[in-house]
């Protein structure tokens, strides 16, 4: 038994109440003997060494009221150790047991390596938490900016409507009235003044037309900027990836509604009709709402873009949500430009795009997100000019 105690890999020292060493094992000699001698001690009294290295610990031990039992239990202690060519702080862990009135048992070990590994792990967890919160902040900021941009876009559209109402029609009517009644006007004001009134009205009308044109152009430019910002936000959202977020129940109808709100400016500008066809009660999808919004925003934007450069009397986007026993299917259908077979083959290729300003990151990323939500995404078209359908099926 003694030879086992001698060999165990932690320090064991038995002392009397004054600290005189009665027994000690190899590990305790290995750890402490150099400290005894570097402090000019003979190595026969442990309390002499503790007084120098850990006086607070010694104080607790020598002044304890405990007659028998654990006096110190797994207390971590920093000790300034002589390492031969300098000093260093070592981290020890101590348990002290009062065996009887005259005997103390010290059990200890050097846990410096463990201490630094714990610190590294703690730092690593902290760094990860900071990164996670950065991503969450970034995601939140993108979302909030997106909402603000939508609001701004809606406001600009409203301004466009209001300025359109203050059209020159009223002035035109007034001019027409004076022209029809010019003889009477000339009779009241005289030829020259009557003519001057008509010229003034004409000037006002022209000036109003020019002003209107400028305003419309400015509004169009603003809407283009808003659309561009929305595209940037969409792309940036795709880079806020790689973070595991908690999967919460997501209301797909709410996701669609929010996505449509963000594209309201484009939908209105292009005079596209939008319809959502979904039952009142829908099963919720467990997932990441932000990622799912990226997907549906992308699909809806593709539908809106399908009308660019297309002149047709009726532009429609229809979104249907169909719940079934084991699936929830969302379809985004447009009657826009559609695409041919060659384009169909490359749709999900990363980097492929048919848009002059796009980056081609959309559908590939969208598919991955949907697959991560236990679903799949397909995009089909009857051919050029025959519209397209994006179908997302979630497997419940």
């Amino acid at each position: 038994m003694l030879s086992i105690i001698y060999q165990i890999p932690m320090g064991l020292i038995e002392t009397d109440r004054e600290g005189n060493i009665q027994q000690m094992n190899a590990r305790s000699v290995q750890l402490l003997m150099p400290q005894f001698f570097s402090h000019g001690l003979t190595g026969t009294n442990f309390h002499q060494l503790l007084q120098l290295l850990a006086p607070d610990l010694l104080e607790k031990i020598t002044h304890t009221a405990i007659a028998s039992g654990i006096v110190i239990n797994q207390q971590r202690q920093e000790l300034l150790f002589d390492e031969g060519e300098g000093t260093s702080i070592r981290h020890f862990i101590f348990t002290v047991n009062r065996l009887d009135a005259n005997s103390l048992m010290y059990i200890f070990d050097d846990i410096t390596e463990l201490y630094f590994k714990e610190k590294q792990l703690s730092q690593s967890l902290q760094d990860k938490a900071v990164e996670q919160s950065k991503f969450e902040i970034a995601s939140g900021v993108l979302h909030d900016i997106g909402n603000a941009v939508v609001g701004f876009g809606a406001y600009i559209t409203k301004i466009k409507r209001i300025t359109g109402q203050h059209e020159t029609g009223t002035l035109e009517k007034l001019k027409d009235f004076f022209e029809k009644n010019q003889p009477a006007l000339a009779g009241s004001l005289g030829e020259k003044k009557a003519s001057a009134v008509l010229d003034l009205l004409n000037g006002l009308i022209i000036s109003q037309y020019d002003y209107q044109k400028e305003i419309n152009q400015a509004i169009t430019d603003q809407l283009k900027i808003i659309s561009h910002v929305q595209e940037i936000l969409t792309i940036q959202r795709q880079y806020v990836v790689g973070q595991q977020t908690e999967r919460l129940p997501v209301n797909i109808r709410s996701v669609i509604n929010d996505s449509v709100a963000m594209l309201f400016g484009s939908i209105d500008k292009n005079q596209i009709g939008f319809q959502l066809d979904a039952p009142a009660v829908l099963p919720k999808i467990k997932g990441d709402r932000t990622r799912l919004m990226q997907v549906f925003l992308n699909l809806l934007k593709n539908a809106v873009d399908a009308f660019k450069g297309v002149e047709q009397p009726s532009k429609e986007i229809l979104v249907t949500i169909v719940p079934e026993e084991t699936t929830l299917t969302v379809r985004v259908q447009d009657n826009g430009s559609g695409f041919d077979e060659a384009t169909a083959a490359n749709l999900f290729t990363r980097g492929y795009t048919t848009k002059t300003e796009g980056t081609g990151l959309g559908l590939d990323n969208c598919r991955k997100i949907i697959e991560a939500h236990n679903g799949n995404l397909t995009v089909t078209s009857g051919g050029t000019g025959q519209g397209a359908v994006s179908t997302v099926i979630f497997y419940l």
Partner: protein
Amino acid sequence: MNPVFNDPELLPWLESNQEEAYDSLPFGVVKMNLEGTITAYSAAQSDFAGISKENAIGKNFFTQVAPCTNNFMVAEKYKKDSLDESFPYMFTYVTKPTPVELRLLKGDKGFQYLLTKKV
């Protein structure tokens, strides 16, 4: 005539004599190769430590036979190319602390020595 513990010519004597001669010395002798593996273990050392020659030879002195010496004060000193140092130490011969004097020797013949004298 056998050398004494602090004889300045002790190293050449150890290197030129057979290991059986170590048993006649009044102090303990451990002979190791440069990796610390014991190649000779004197009778006096065996008495001090309570470990037989057969159980010591072939084992690593610092990690298996006397782990209490595995620190910068003893084991690390053998990293020097040559060595002749003496100092007081505490051995625990199966938990009983025993003050000793150690002498560490190392020459250029590929062996190193640890000598132990009880004080």
